[in-house]
């Protein structure tokens, strides 16, 4: 039951309706039952894994809280994290490590065979694993209070709008909301519905429409020329943005209809003027998580090395980010690319700031535009490796883009509708980025009419055949 399925559109309003009818003291159990039912309908066997992770998280949380000695607390936290990471390792990374060892030994002439695991990846495992780890670390750092109700911990990890693909929430932000759980306010219902509608537009009209062109080109690299591959490479970040940010908005909007305020995940990333600024706007909940639980402890441990300590921490952080996105060597290289780019920015930050201040470049529109275009092109290039499963494929794409030009492969319907929907999306983003007060006094009737138009546009021009979300594969 994904967000774009017909079942979800039927059941979701009913879930919201009953949430508001159920007495307050039973709402926690009601939402937990709803979340487990939705998860169980998709992957019944792995529901047990989710429950087991919740029990471990709850038990280790209570254990950390009851322990006085700081060193012992630290050991319990590490033990809990290792236990929580075990299923993620087994399901997602076991085969990757096996295959890496086999090919490494193969290079030096040793032939070995290691048993492989061919199980389906449990949905949302990367997300709820990170949320569990965040809770235990925050508890150890005394940044959150222990949660004594096991059902609250279970709901935190299984809350159906966010369990499958995030945003990656924090215990300190979610537990107070779980313990409050009042009836949905009319303003929450309206705001939630608006976010969901906009999310569906981004997913069905921008991402899925552009994907018809991008997939057609990328899945036939050998017969397409560099011009078509170049256009696909330029469109892919927009497709990804529509897919990932659209999914996040639907999730945040669905949670809002139940009165929950979920942390944002995207903030107009294509207006970033530097790679570091881009990563503060793109998949923000993951990057903030990585910053808090990987980058900061690493940078702290390496602080005596000053700038080089920061570089080391950045490289490790984005290596983890790459591996999180996929258990392939191309994802590892993608992560390292981001790490190198951010390290260069970090090492040159002071000189760049001084140069920009000296010539007042930050106030010049052409300088900002150049920065924005450069960041986009760099990201689009890195995604040729990020989205591919092999270097051979990525290198062939890059090679053709550079040296094999010719007439463009055109798919007029996808391109025209895709560009039109993208221009609506960018119009909204430009307004929010540069003219936040524009149209703020627009008449309510006009606003309602526009939302009805958006709804009709989705029905008429959206790709409504249940396309999969990119985030679900993580």
């Amino acid at each position, binding site marked *: 039951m994904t967000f774009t399925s017909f079942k979800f559109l039927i059941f979701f309003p009913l879930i919201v309706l009953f949430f508001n009818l159920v007495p307050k003291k039973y709402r926690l159990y009601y939402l937990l039952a709803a979340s487990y039912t939705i998860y169980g309908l998709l992957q019944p066997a792995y529901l047990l894994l989710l429950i087991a992770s919740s029990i471990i998280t709850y038990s280790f949380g209570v254990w950390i809280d009851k322990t006085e000695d700081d060193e012992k607390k630290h050991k319990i936290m590490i033990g809990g994290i290792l236990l929580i990471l075990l299923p993620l390792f087994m399901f997602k990374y076991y085969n990757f490590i096996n295959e890496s060892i086999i090919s490494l030994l193969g290079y030096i002439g040793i032939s070995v065979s290691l048993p492989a695991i061919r199980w389906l990846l449990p949905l949302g495992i990367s997300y709820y694993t990170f949320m569990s780890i965040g809770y235990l670390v925050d508890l*150890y*750092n*005394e*940044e959150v209070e222990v949660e004594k109700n096991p059902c609250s911990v279970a709901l935190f990890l299984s809350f159906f709008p966010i369990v499958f693909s995030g945003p990656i929430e924090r215990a300190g932000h979610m537990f107070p909301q779980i313990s409050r759980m009042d009836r949905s306010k009319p303003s929450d219902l309206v705001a939630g519905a608006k976010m969901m509608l906009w999310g569906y537009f981004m997913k069905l009209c921008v991402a899925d429409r552009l994907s018809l062109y991008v997939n057609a080109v990328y899945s036939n690299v050998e017969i397409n020329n560099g011009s078509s591959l170049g256009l696909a490479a330029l469109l892919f970040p927009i497709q990804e943005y529509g897919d990932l940010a659209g999914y996040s908005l639907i999730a945040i909007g669905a949670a809002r209809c139940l009165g929950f305020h979920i942390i944002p995940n995207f903030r107009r990333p294509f207006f970033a003027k530097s790679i*570091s600024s881009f990563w503060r706007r793109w998949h923000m909940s993951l990057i903030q998580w990585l*910053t808090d639980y990987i*980058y*900061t*402890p690493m*940078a*702290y441990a*390496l*602080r*005596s090395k*000053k*700038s080089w*300590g*920061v570089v080391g*921490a950045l490289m490790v952080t984005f290596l983890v980010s790459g591996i999180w996105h996929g258990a392939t060597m191309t994802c590892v290289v993608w992560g390292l690319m981001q790490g190198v780019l951010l390290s260069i920015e*970090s090492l040159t*930050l*002071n000189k760049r*700031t*001084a140069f920009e201040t000296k010539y007042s470049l930050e106030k010049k529109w052409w300088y900002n535009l150049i920065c924005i275009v450069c960041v986009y092109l760099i990201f689009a290039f890195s995604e040729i490796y990020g989205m591919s499963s092999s270097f051979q494929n990525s290198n062939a794409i890059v090679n053709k883009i550079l040296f094999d030009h010719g007439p463009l492969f055109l798919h007029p319907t996808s391109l025209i509708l895709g560009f039109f929907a993208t221009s609506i999306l960018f119009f909204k983003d430009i307004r929010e980025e540069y003219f936040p007060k524009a149209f703020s006094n627009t008449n309510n009737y006009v606003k309602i009419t526009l939302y009805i138009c958006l709804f009709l546009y989705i029905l008429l021009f959206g790709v409504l055949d249940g396309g999969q979300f990119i985030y679900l594969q993580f």
Partner: protein
Amino acid sequence: MDKKVIIEKLTPIFREVFSDPNLVLTDELTANDVDNWGSLTHMTMMAEVEQTFGIAFKLKELKKLNTVGELIEAIQTKA
């Protein structure tokens, strides 16, 4: 250690690390008030502070420091 002495020693560190020669330290000053005070420069600043005052912070302690005033208090406790 006297608060005034701590501020005198902290000011050049902050100005150097955050590339702001006119930065004035106040108790209420936070990372949000200084342009170049991000996660990248924060650790460099803390390493300089530890070296200058001959002290060491645990990550847990460091995370609780939100303002310059809290940093000064922490230095007073340790130095």
